[in-house]
């Protein structure tokens, strides 16, 4: 019978079970309970995120409280604290979900149960979304994850800085594919400069859309152009940030830095027409009839202009700069025309296609 199979073989069977089945299988008999605890769990993505809308979360909790779940009742016992301290939601793949408050009892309860549902988890992607690391320190996050293998990490932040322990965590996994997306505000420059080399550094564009957005704040939501230059020199593979781009010479310098880079780099920028005109003049080109798809090269120079699939391209050394006319008409505050500039070295179609999309 199954009970006669060695534990490691039953654990191998268990490795093909999803979260819900694991919960049931461990209640069948002691042999299966132990096999589940010793099994590996392979999922696509692990997501840890702080509840985004605290009021809504509290409302959901009230409903759950009424449904009689004892653990919620326990977590809810200090509801005043709860409103301010928030929650952490943990999704191991699509079928195993936990929620914990900051209370030690809750965190330990989740860790203890997680340990009984698998021995080691492997995921392609670990996503740490909008976690309040002051409330849930990175050490606690790692305890919640347990023995965990993953290929890439995506982090999103909403504060102006990162704790040293979080930066240390990022550096520890800098050999993985690491992505950082900033929400609500951009990290301060010392923190940005302390980041390890990233695969992609960006903001949540839906929230930090553009200088004409009603909530836009120059200090919080955009980077000075010289700071962008410093970040490009940090050799992040791809950068797409809102920048207060005012000086065409700084744009030229970014092009030069990317051109001289010895790694594949891609920088995307949103700029307005006046700056673009000044920049094109600087690289011996001009816009005809006010349309970027009609650019004329005034004289031969180190900057070579050509049109590729209706997109103007300016080449300098190893770098190519593409110019794309865009309109943000979907935003509530009206149509905003801007130009999206992509500076790439070397041409990496995978990078380009993923970021343009």
């Amino acid at each position: 019978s199954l009970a006669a199979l060695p534990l490691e073989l039953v654990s191998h069977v268990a490795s093909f079970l999803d979260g819900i089945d694991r919960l049931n299988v461990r209640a069948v008999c002691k042999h299966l309970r132990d096999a589940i605890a010793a099994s590996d769990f392979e999922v696509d993505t692990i997501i840890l995120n702080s509840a985004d809308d605290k009021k809504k979360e509290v409302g959901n909790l009230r409903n759950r409280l009424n449904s009689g779940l004892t653990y919620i009742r326990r977590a809810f016992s200090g509801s005043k604290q709860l409103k301010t301290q928030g929650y952490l939601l943990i999704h191991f793949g699509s079928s195993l979900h936990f929620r914990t408050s900051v209370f030690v009892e809750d965190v330990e309860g989740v860790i203890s149960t997680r340990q009984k549902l698998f021995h080691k988890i492997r995921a392609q992607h670990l996503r740490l979304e909008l976690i309040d690391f002051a409330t849930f320190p990175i050490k606690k996050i790692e305890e919640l994850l347990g023995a965990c293998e993953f290929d890439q990490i995506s982090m999103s932040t909403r504060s102006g800085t990162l704790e040293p322990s979080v930066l240390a965590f990022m550096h520890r996994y800098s050999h993985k594919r690491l992505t950082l997306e900033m929400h609500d505000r951009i990290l301060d420059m010392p923190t940005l400069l302390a980041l390890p080399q990233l695969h992609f550094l960006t903001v949540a564009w839906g929230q930090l859309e553009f200088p004409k957005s009603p909530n836009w704040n120059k200090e919080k939501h955009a980077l000075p152009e010289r700071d962008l230059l410093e970040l490009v020199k940090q050799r992040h593979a791809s950068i797409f940030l809102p920048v207060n781009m005012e000086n065409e010479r700084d744009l030229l310098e970014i092009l030069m830095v990317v051109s001289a880079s010895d790694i594949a780099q891609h920088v995307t920028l949103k700029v307005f027409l006046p700056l673009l005109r000044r920049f094109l003049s600087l690289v011996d080109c001009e816009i005809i009839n006010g349309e970027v798809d009609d650019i004329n090269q005034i004289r031969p120079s180190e900057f070579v202009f050509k049109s590729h699939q209706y997109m103007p391209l300016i080449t300098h050394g190893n770098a190519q700069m593409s110019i794309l006319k865009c309109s943000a008409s979907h935003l509530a505050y009206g149509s905003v025309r801007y130009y999206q500039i992509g500076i790439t070295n070397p041409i990496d179609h995978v990078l380009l296609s993923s970021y343009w999309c």
Partner: protein
Amino acid sequence: RIYPLMRVTLTTSDGASVTVSRQLTKHSGFIEKAITDMAVDDNAVPLSAVAVDVDDATLKLVIEWLTEHRDDALPYPEKTDEERRADDIPAWDQAFVQKWDTKEDQQQTLYAVITAADKLDIKGLLDMTCKTLANKINGKTVEEMREILQLECDFTEEELAEIRKENAWCEN
């Protein structure tokens, strides 16, 4: 390189002997290691017999599966880029299992093949049979699982209560 005509004799736990092509045994880590350990010239035909801790009836099933999968790529892929799943068993394998995994058999043959695949280190067969077993209990209640697997509940009431309490930490 393994030549199609190379053959190896396997002796089973119940004393039978079966001679099979190295084209099949190359998928068995155990048999390949045994042959390597013999340190014989690959051209020496026939090789000395390799003893396997599998009975004759089960070995015949293993050989039938190996014959169908003789051209599978080696090494067996350990990791995939997707969530581990049990619903991707090839049609031939499903039909192969259905022939002998009958209700009357009560999974005994399936357990025997799982054990044999493990002992002979045939990863493809081990995964397929373990997925088959996982599919039997997938989506079932605790009681249904006990019935399908013919297992008795050996928990005390207190232990069961503790499991329910632990499981309640999950949001599922």
